[in-house]
């Protein structure tokens, strides 16, 4: 089980890297000596790194607030390199630490969105909020945040050069993997999801291309642009989250209050996809998505899911399919063994109340039956180049939902049906 707090991932570079800071502070600044410049507001102050705030006063250039100085300091720690890609929500740049060219980072620069008139966009707020708090080896880490120019938000993220799980799944010709590999990837994914839930966060967009791969083979859950904290009982939530193929039946039926079970369903479908090497339930519309679930898993009814018919958008095809027993899965998913199939079907239980939780997943027998999970260094890797481009495409993609708030304003217009893959050329 993940022992999260032991992991000293740098989340606040100011705290975690005193070395870097000292370096910054020794960079001589000439701003005091330069002849007067027309834009005093934008002049960086003298080097301030490392000095506690109360000693800073006498050295001020009197043009920047404390906060602005901190921002300058943070900004100067990184060198922004080439643009890796451009998307609707963000542009991604390769970057490195100013004092160490080998320490790569990805700099995600949030765009000011023209169509969103209400200030800082929801995706940015959500991503920032949750990545600031979640520190775990299987969750992409936010190293720093700063603003460039006037109001551009830049997230400094760890650089994950080895693509994502989707690339591995799809590259059937060149990438071979087996049950031990699947177990390792699933283990890392499950720990990430457990950690989110244990911190009262729902991810709400789990899918293979949001599972990025670090240089050491570690899987990292990324893209928290749709994430939210658990809601108190009775508080309404939006049902328009999670990319369709990975969306659980309760959301397809319009449930307005839900739990971590929604993410578990997605994890189950990633599991199935890892085995099949193709999406298990690739519906082309919501109606088709429900039909696929009914056909391949079973029709949700009052018998297997008390209360389901009360959900606002409950409609199922008229010919009721009984829930398929384990044996029915063995043919297609037998590669992960009987225990593996057992785990899979527990994640795909129709009634969210009976679905396995992330924590129970971690306690499942499958992890302890042979084969052992592959060590992460030995996991198969993607073939060929293009890593930087793909990494950028992964980071800048818009989450599976357009704007619209939790109270249902604007709901049901475009939302998760309209994914902007096009932007990731």
């Amino acid at each position: 089980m993940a022992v999260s707090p032991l992991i000293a991932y740098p989340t606040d570079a100011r705290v975690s890297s005193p070395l870097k800071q000292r370096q910054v502070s020794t960079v001589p600044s000439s701003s005091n000596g330069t002849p007067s410049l027309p834009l005093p507001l934008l002049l960086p102050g003298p080097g301030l790194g490392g000095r506690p705030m109360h000693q800073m006063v006498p050295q001020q250039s009197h043009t920047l607030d404390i906060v602005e100085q901190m921002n300058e300091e943070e900004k100067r720690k990184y060198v922004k390199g080439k643009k890796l890609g451009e998307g609707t929500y963000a542009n991604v740049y390769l970057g490195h630490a100013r004092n160490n060219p080998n320490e790569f980072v990805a700099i995600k620069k949030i765009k000011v969105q023209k169509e969103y008139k209400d200030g800082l966009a929801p995706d940015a707020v959500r991503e920032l909020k949750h990545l600031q708090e979640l520190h775990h080896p299987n969750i992409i880490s936010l190293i720093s945040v700063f603003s460039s120019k006037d109001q551009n938000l830049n997230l400094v993220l760890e650089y994950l050069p080895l693509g994502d799980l989707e690339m591995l799944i799809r590259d059937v010709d060149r990438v071979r993997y087996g049950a031990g590999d699947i177990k390792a990837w699933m283990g890392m994914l499950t720990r990430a999801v457990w950690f989110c839930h244990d911190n009262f966060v729902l991810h709400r967009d789990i899918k293979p291309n949001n599972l990025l791969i670090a240089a050491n083979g570690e899987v990292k859950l990324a893209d928290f642009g749709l994430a939210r904290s658990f809601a108190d009982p009775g508080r309404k939530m939006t049902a328009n989250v999670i990319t369709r193929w990975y969306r659980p039946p309760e959301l397809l039926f319009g449930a307005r209050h839900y739990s971590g079970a929604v993410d578990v369903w997605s994890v189950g479908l990633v599991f199935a996809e890892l085995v099949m090497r193709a999406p298990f339930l690739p519906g082309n519309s919501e109606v088709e998505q429900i039909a696929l679930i009914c056909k391949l898993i079973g029709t949700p009814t009052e018998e297997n899911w008390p209360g389901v018919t009360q959900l606002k958008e409950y409609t199922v095809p008229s010919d009721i399919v009984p829930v398929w027993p384990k044996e029915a899965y063995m043919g297609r998913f037998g590669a992960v063994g009987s225990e593996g199939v057992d785990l899979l079907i527990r994640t795909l239980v129709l009634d969210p109340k009976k679905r396995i939780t992330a924590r129970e997943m971690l306690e499942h027998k499958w992890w302890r039956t042979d084969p052992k999970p592959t060590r992460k260094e030995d996991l198969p890797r993607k073939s060929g180049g293009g890593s930087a481009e793909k990494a950028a495409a992964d980071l800048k993609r818009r989450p599976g939902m357009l704007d619209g708030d939790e109270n249902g304003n604007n709901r049901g217009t475009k939302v998760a049906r309209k994914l902007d893959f096009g932007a990731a050329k």
Partner: protein
Amino acid sequence: MATEDARYRQSSQYRLWSFSPTQLDAKRETTNALARAMISERLLLSSSSSSSLPNSNNPSAATSNANTPDPDGGGPSLPEFLTPAEESLLLTFYTSELLRAGDHAEMSDEMKATAAALFRRFYITNSIMTYPPQEMSIVALFFGCKAEGAFPRITDFMEKFGRERPEEILAGEFLLCQGIRFAIDVKHPFRALRGAVMELRSFGDIDPSRIDNAEFHAREILRFSPLITDAYFHYTPSQIMMAALSLADRGLAERLIQSTFHYVAPPSSGGDTPMANNGDASKEDATKGSESSSTQAAIVGTYIRDKVLGAIEACRDMLSKELPERREHWTSKAVIKSQIQPIRKKLRKCCDPDRSNLVELQRRRREQALRKADSEDEDNPDGDRAEMDAAVFGGDLAQNNNTKRRKVVEDPFGGPL
């Protein structure tokens, strides 16, 4: 597995926004002194010189102001500045106003509480003299909704608060975000209270109406007292909850403490059991059951209990200074007239000439950013050229040259895509 305490220490609330009272005072004094220095400089600049070039012509005035916190001889045109104590009083007043405005807009408790916490965080490193508190309180309310996962339309918000243009609120949003160091998550004691109530109910021997009553009063306290004081900077959500519960019904709070820290040293084991002196103990550990009696003692024994009680008592003291009844104090005409108006009057004279108008400030900054972008091509489609790095990262001339030179050497990634 991580204890709850260890988790809490990873939160931005703890990492970035928890201070001892001494640290907090020092920060506020620094902020106040810095604001005085900067505003003095700007006021002198605008009043003294007609053909002025910034920066170079009055370093002496600026530094002398910075060094002497109370510049009484700082030139004829300088106004009297707010003292840290006056800023603090005004901050409390405006926090109360913020909470009232939140009630008016029918926001949830969490939204109001987040807005209040972010507002107070912002004014640790920014002076009230620099950025206008009234405006920033509306900005904080707007962003508080977002932080809590609701994304209201700016037009609705404008209407509710009688603002004419979206910019009047939006202009301060990024400023606020930067001021709170991009840490958006605020942890509140409301859920902790629900948990405590459930635990009390589970004991089975307490009159349910007593519990309901205590919950009601504790919640009233949580909706006001910790938000208008510095409690969030000094105490954890559970400590604040326990303090509020204790104010509502001390007996019930004590009952919870006793049942949590239940360990009593076995009489035979002697007095020399070393009490491990770590603060990592948590309720979670307690329920897991530990093996040896010394670890038990370290987790749920009297030493930790007393430590926890100490924190709760101190927090209780702080909350008791601003009990919900004080809502009326901060809206009383007499109080406003005698305590608030004089400071506001002072503030009007000593506020930052460059920054007290948020809309104007943003307009100017955008212009500068644009000019900067023009000359440096930042958003140009083929802007991946080396020059733009300097544009993004830094601005000043010396740095620019440096970056360029280094860039040539270090760019192992080849040309643009």
